[in-house]
């Protein structure tokens, strides 16, 4: 009898432990679980929320309590973020956990982006893009979906996006001692030389670490990069530019973007945009990191060299045969990565099905639910047609350049 009772107690305790993992078991990997729509709740003083809605174009921080599952992070900071996606109804948000409370982290994260998925009717274009970059061996921020409640009012489906910061660098590149810059869209900029004044580069490349170091240390290598990019002597161009830019990584990045028909990236329609620049420690060499991809999947017949002539770096780089070949080769690999195991179609279908019921509940989205369904269809069509188009175009280009 006693033995039976003991077994029952032990079994009950074991079941409880297995069914309800303790809070300490929760990790950032749980948060970025791609198969789960998370629930995030923000609590903001009603006065601050009114201000945030009224002044959504300004980067003003407000105090917020952030809750996920049984974890509540008090005295975090929230502000409106984004470019054209900024709005009052379904605000795009950035959360900083340590702005007011020194050293405060959430699952080891200093900050998070809550993307309002305002620009693409499919809701899954960005997450698919990031997953594709990852699939192509390029570091990309982790993403998952959530239902966001602000003061217990559902504000719709959002993407939770990992910040590009020192922790990201350590996770994805294995080191973070270098210099990280976020590109800030200003006037049209295609890699032109902006002169000797560091201020022009400082305006465009916002330091994300080492902020207390001098402008000369932070920005001189960036200025030197664009000076060399625009150097007239083709004979020394590559040798000099490669001191400041990993050209093979640059070409790979642009090829993936262009494969995904990105119209707001390095070869963007208006300017270079949506990337981070990272300079590894003890070098002057930079590389690109992908960011904010909500303008991809434009259409399957997106030109492989769209805006190529505009960008000084890309234009000069593909004049070198090996880099030109690399560009085409990456495009081919992208096509293969799309069709292999029907990866892209399956990813779009999986993510679309995951968010669909929540999208229909999202009354703040700028699209109808029918438009969401149509957008998913268009993505699937892209996944089907884009590889064929790219491979065909690459064959033509190779033939022409033989």
């Amino acid at each position, binding site marked *: 009898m006693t033995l039976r009772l003991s077994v029952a107690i032990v079994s009950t305790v074991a079941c409880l432990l297995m069914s309800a993992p303790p809070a300490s078991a929760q990790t950032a990997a749980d948060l970025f679980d791609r198969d789960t729509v998370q629930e995030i709740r923000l609590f903001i003083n009603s006065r601050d929320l009114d201000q945030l809605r009224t002044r959504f174009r300004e980067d003003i921080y407000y105090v917020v309590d952030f809750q996920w599952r049984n974890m509540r992070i*008090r*005295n975090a900071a929230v502000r409106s973020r984004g470019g054209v996606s900024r709005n009052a109804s379904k605000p795009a948000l950035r959360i900083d956990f340590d702005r007011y409370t*020194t050293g405060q982290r959430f699952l080891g994260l200093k900050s998070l982006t809550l993307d309002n998925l305002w620009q693409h009717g499919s809701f899954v274009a960005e997450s698919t893009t990031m997953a594709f970059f990852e699939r192509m061996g390029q570091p990309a921020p982790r993403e998952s979906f959530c239902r966001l409640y602000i003061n217990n009012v559902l504000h719709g489906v959002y993407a939770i996006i990992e910040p590009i910061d020192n922790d990201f660098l350590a996770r994805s590149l294995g080191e973070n001692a270098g210099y990280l810059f976020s590109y800030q869209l200003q006037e049209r900029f295609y890699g032109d030389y902006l002169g000797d004044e560091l201020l022009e580069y400082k305006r465009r490349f916002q330091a994300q670490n080492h902020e207390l170091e001098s402008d000369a240390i932070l920005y001189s290598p960036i200025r030197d990069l664009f000076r060399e990019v625009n150097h007239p002597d083709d004979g020394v161009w590559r040798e000099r530019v490669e001191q400041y830019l990993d050209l093979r990584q640059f070409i790979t990045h642009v090829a993936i973007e262009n494969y995904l028909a990105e119209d707001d990236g390095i070869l963007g329609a208006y300017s270079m945009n949506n990337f981070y620049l990272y300079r590894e420690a003890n070098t002057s060499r930079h590389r690109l990191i992908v960011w904010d991809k909500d303008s991809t999947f434009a259409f399957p017949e997106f030109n492989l060299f769209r805006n190529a002539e505009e960008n000084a770096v890309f234009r000069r780089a593909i004049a070198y045969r090996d880099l030109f070949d690399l560009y085409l080769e990456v495009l081919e690999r992208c096509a293969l990565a799309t069709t292999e195991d029907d990866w892209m179609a399956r990813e779009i279908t999986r993510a679309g099905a995951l968010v669909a019921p929540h999208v229909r509940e999202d009354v703040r989205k700028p699209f109808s639910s029918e438009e969401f369904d149509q957008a998913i269809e268009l993505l699937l069509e892209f996944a089907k047609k884009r590889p064929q188009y790219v491979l065909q175009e690459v064959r033509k280009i190779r033939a022409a350049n033989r």
Partner: protein
Amino acid sequence: MASPSIASAIRPFTAGVYMLLAGLIAPPGTAAQSTFAPSAATQEPAGQGSKSPKPGKQDSQQKESEQEEEGAKKADDKVGFRWKGYPSFQLGKGTHIDLRARVQLDAQGADSPGNDSDEPETDFARRRIGIEGEIGGVLAFEVDRELEGENAWRDVYANYQQFDFVQVQGGKFKLPFSLDENTSATNLDFVYRSLAARVLAPGRDRGVMVHGRALDRMVRYELGVFDHDGRNARSQNPERVYGERTLAGRLVVQPFRSSKSIAADLQLGGAFTSSDLPEGARSLRGVTTFEETFFDPDLFVLGRRQRAGFELRWRPGPFSLKSEYMRVTTERRGQSVEDSDLSPLLATGWYVSGTWAITGENKADGLNKPRRPFMRGGFGAFEVGARIEELTFTSAASDGVPSLSVRADLVEASSDRVTTLGANWYLNQWVKIQLNAIREAIANPERRSLATREPSWSFVTRFQFTM
């Protein structure tokens, strides 16, 4: 030719010497008591009159001086000009107008935190002129203003003083809170008031106040209603909020006043203010001795602001001991992220100071009448003193993680601890020279540039001319 650094170092002293000379050549006269430059340590609510000596002059020696003044005033009833150490126009019995002036010039060392240049810096702390007087012996008045600067009008009030036990004062004057804040700048033991008095006490505002003395002057009371809670609680930022209609009161007792013991001068007191604040960012901010801001976040408030203060003063013979504790709480109704109440903001300040008149003058009489004035058979009066003080900002909560968030329940504490060593030289009734060595240690997570600065000594010299 002197080097620029030497020349710049000499400059403030040259200005001080001019003031000194002006004081020395001024004509001799009777040093009359005045609200502008009271001889004893506190500036009090009313102007001075035969029927109502200032409550601050409650010293044992004061009775004798009051009798002397009575005699002098009888002789002074004739209409005409008098020199009382300052110009005075007698217009009839119990009616006179006095002209007053005060100049204070401060010289800060080159390494002082308040000095942005690489050279010693001089600055006029005060250049004030004013008139004060009485009408018919029952109505006292005072009007004074700075010669330049914002809020130039300082005290502008009238006091109906017919009865000692109940008087009514109206106009603009300091709220009855804090011994140090209500001490005339002329009579400060140190160059600067305590941080608690400068930051937490309300300062001046418009209002009306009932005050008086009772029980053979053992008890003094002041109770008034004011438009707001004083200039000290305001910010230049128009978005900051401050107290609305304010009730303020102060009660001071000298329990052993009637005794002949050494404790006769011992004075204890308490004070309060109470006002409502509209919703917004609070205006009370922490500043260092040299006016650097060390605590000024946009903490949101709504509700009642209350001040409580306790004071002690004892001046046995050439010694003095002063101490105050002040506490300001400001409610934050509906200010949490869930629109519920946050714990009140809490600002506290205290100081303990002591002085010793080396030349033996009685501190309660004031040292501005040295026994042997400079160049009149002596060297004036010398005094040394020390003060320690602290000013702290936090909130009343005790649980949770401290944060710098403007809606944190537990606000991370910021504080400034200051030690001041001082020497005062009273050359005569008009001229005083003060030298202070000041050491500040800031514990402040918000302004790390200040918090990480190594505490160091700063030196300030003040030249003062008062008439």
